[in-house]
C-alpha cells in the first residue's frame, strides 16, 4: 500500500456525457444522454434489465466509443480500472494474474512480486497465491479482480454488477473492498440491480430506463423522495414499463 499513491486528489475527476448515444447498426441502445460524473463519490447506476447500465459503464471506461455525442474528461483522463460481473482471470496462478497486470504497466520486474503479494494480502487472498485463478470460488475470483484493479492505482473504479453472482458472505467482502477503495480516494461508479446494496453503498444514484437518464439524485433524495414517478416506482419495487 505504501507504493500506491492514493491520496484524495485536490479535484476529483469529472466526466461529462454530452448528448452521448450508442446505436450500433442504427439501433439505439443508449441515449442520447447528458450527465456529469463528478465529486469524490460513490455513484450507483440503477435500472431494470436492458436499461443500458453496462453500456454506460463501458462508454465511460472507454471500452466502447459513442455513436454520436461526446464524452469528455475534464483535464486529462484519470487512471481507471473496471471490475466485471464475471471477472476474466488468466489461466495461471492468482499471484501470476497480479504480476501480469503489473508487467503490462511496465512495473520493473523486481518490484512485481512484492506488490502483488501486498495486493493479495489486502484482499485476504495471500493463502491462495499459488492457486490457479480459474479454480477459485466466485467470491475469491471477484476479490482477485479487485486486487488486480487495486494494482492499477485507479482514480476511478468502475464496477459492473460485481456481486450479482455471489453469496452473501462474498458480497460482504466485495462491498468492504469497495469501501476500502473509496476511503483511499478512489471515485466509485458501479451498477447494481439490488436496491439494498444501493442503499448501503450509494452517495448518488443514476436511474436509467430504456437507455435514457430518468433521474440523477443524491442517494438520500433518491431513496426517500425520488424526483420522478419512475424513480418512485423503482424505489418501491414496482416494475417499470
Amino acid at each position, binding site marked *: 500500500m505504501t507504493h500506491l499513491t492514493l491520496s484524495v486528489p485536490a479535484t476529483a475527476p469529472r466526466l461529462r456525457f454530452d448528448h452521448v448515444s450508442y446505436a450500433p447498426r442504427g439501433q439505439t441502445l443508449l441515449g442520447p444522454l447528458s450527465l456529469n460524473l463528478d465529486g469524490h463519490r460513490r455513484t450507483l447506476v440503477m435500472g431494470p434489465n436492458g436499461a443500458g447500465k453496462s453500456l454506460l459503464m463501458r462508454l465511460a471506461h472507454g*471500452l466502447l466509443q459513442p455513436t454520436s455525442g461526446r464524452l469528455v474528461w475534464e483535464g486529462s483522463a484519470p487512471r481507471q480500472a473496471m471490475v466485471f460481473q464475471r471477472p476474466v482471470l488468466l489461466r495461471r496462478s492468482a499471484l501470476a494474474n497480479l504480476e501480469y497486470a503489473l508487467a*503490462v504497466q511496465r512495473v520493473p520486474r523486481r518490484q512485481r512480486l512484492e506488490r502483488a503479494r501486498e495486493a493479495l494480502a489486502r484482499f485476504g487472498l495471500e493463502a491462495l497465491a499459488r492457486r*490457479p485463478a480459474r479454480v477459485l470460488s466466485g467470491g475469491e475470483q471477484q476479490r482477485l479482480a479487485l486486487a488486480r484493479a487495486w494494482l492499477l492505482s485507479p482514480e476511478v473504479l468502475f464496477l459492473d454488477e460485481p456481486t450479482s453472482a455471489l453469496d452473501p458472505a462474498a458480497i460482504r467482502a466485495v462491498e468492504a473492498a469497495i469501501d476500502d477503495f473509496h476511503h483511499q480516494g478512489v471515485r466509485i461508479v458501479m451498477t447494481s440491480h439490488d436496491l439494498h446494496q444501493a442503499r448501503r453503498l450509494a452517495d448518488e444514484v443514476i436511474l436509467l430506463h430504456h437507455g435514457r437518464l430518468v433521474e440523477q439524485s443524491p442517494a438520500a433524495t433518491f431513496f426517500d423522495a425520488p424526483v420522478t414517478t419512475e424513480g418512485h416506482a423503482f424505489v418501491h419495487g414496482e416494475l417499470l414499463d
Partner: protein
Amino acid sequence: MTDSAFLTALELVIGLDADLLAIVGLSLKISLTAVAIAALLAFPMGAALALFRFPGRAPLIVALNALMGLPPVVAGLAVYLLLSRAGPLGSLGLLFTPTAMVVAQVILVLPILAALTRQKVEELHGEYAEQLASIGVSRLRRIPTLLWDARLSLITVVLAGFGRASAEVGAVMIVGGNIDGVTRVMTTAIVLETSKGNLPLALGLGIVLLALVGAINALAHLLGEATRRQLG
C-alpha cells in the same frame, strides 16, 4: 490376412526389429521436428491473424483454410522442384534428405496450425478482449498472453498437425525418395511393402504406426487433462 498382420505387428514390436526402430525413430523425428517448426511459426501467425485487422485479412484466412486441404503430393512436388538441383535451392543439396522431408511437412502442417490457432485465439479473445483492454494490454502484447492461455486447445491443434504429418506419404515419398536407412519412414515403408505384395507386413507396419500415433495422442490427452484439472 488381418490375423497375420496383427501377428506381424506384434512380432515387429516385441522383436524390437532394428530396421523398424530406425524407421519409427526417423518418422517421429521428422514429423515432430516439422510440427515443432510449424508451431513456432504458426502460433504467432495465427494469433496475429486473430487480433489484427488489416486489408487482405479475409482472403488470407480463406487461403489458409483452403491450404489445410493441400494434397501432400502437391506440397511434395513443390518442395521437390524447389530443392532439385535444377531448382532455385538446388545448390543446397537437400533433395532426398530428411531435411527435405521436414520442409515438405512444415508446408503441409503450417496452414493447419495457423488456421486452427487463429480460430482458438479468436474464440478466447472474445472472452478476454474487454478485460485486456481495461487493463491496457496492447494488441501485440495480447499475442503471447492469449497463446499461453489457449495452451490447452493448442495441444489439440498441434495433435491435428502431427496427425497430418505422420500420416502423409505423398510428400515424403517424392522429396525423400524412400531411401533405405536414410529417408524411409513408416508410411513410405508401408507403400513399399504393399508394392512387394507383402500385405501382412504392410498392414503390420500400419498397425505399429497407428499405435504410435495413438500413444502420442493419449499422452497429450493425459497432459491436457492434468493441466485442465489443475487450472480449472
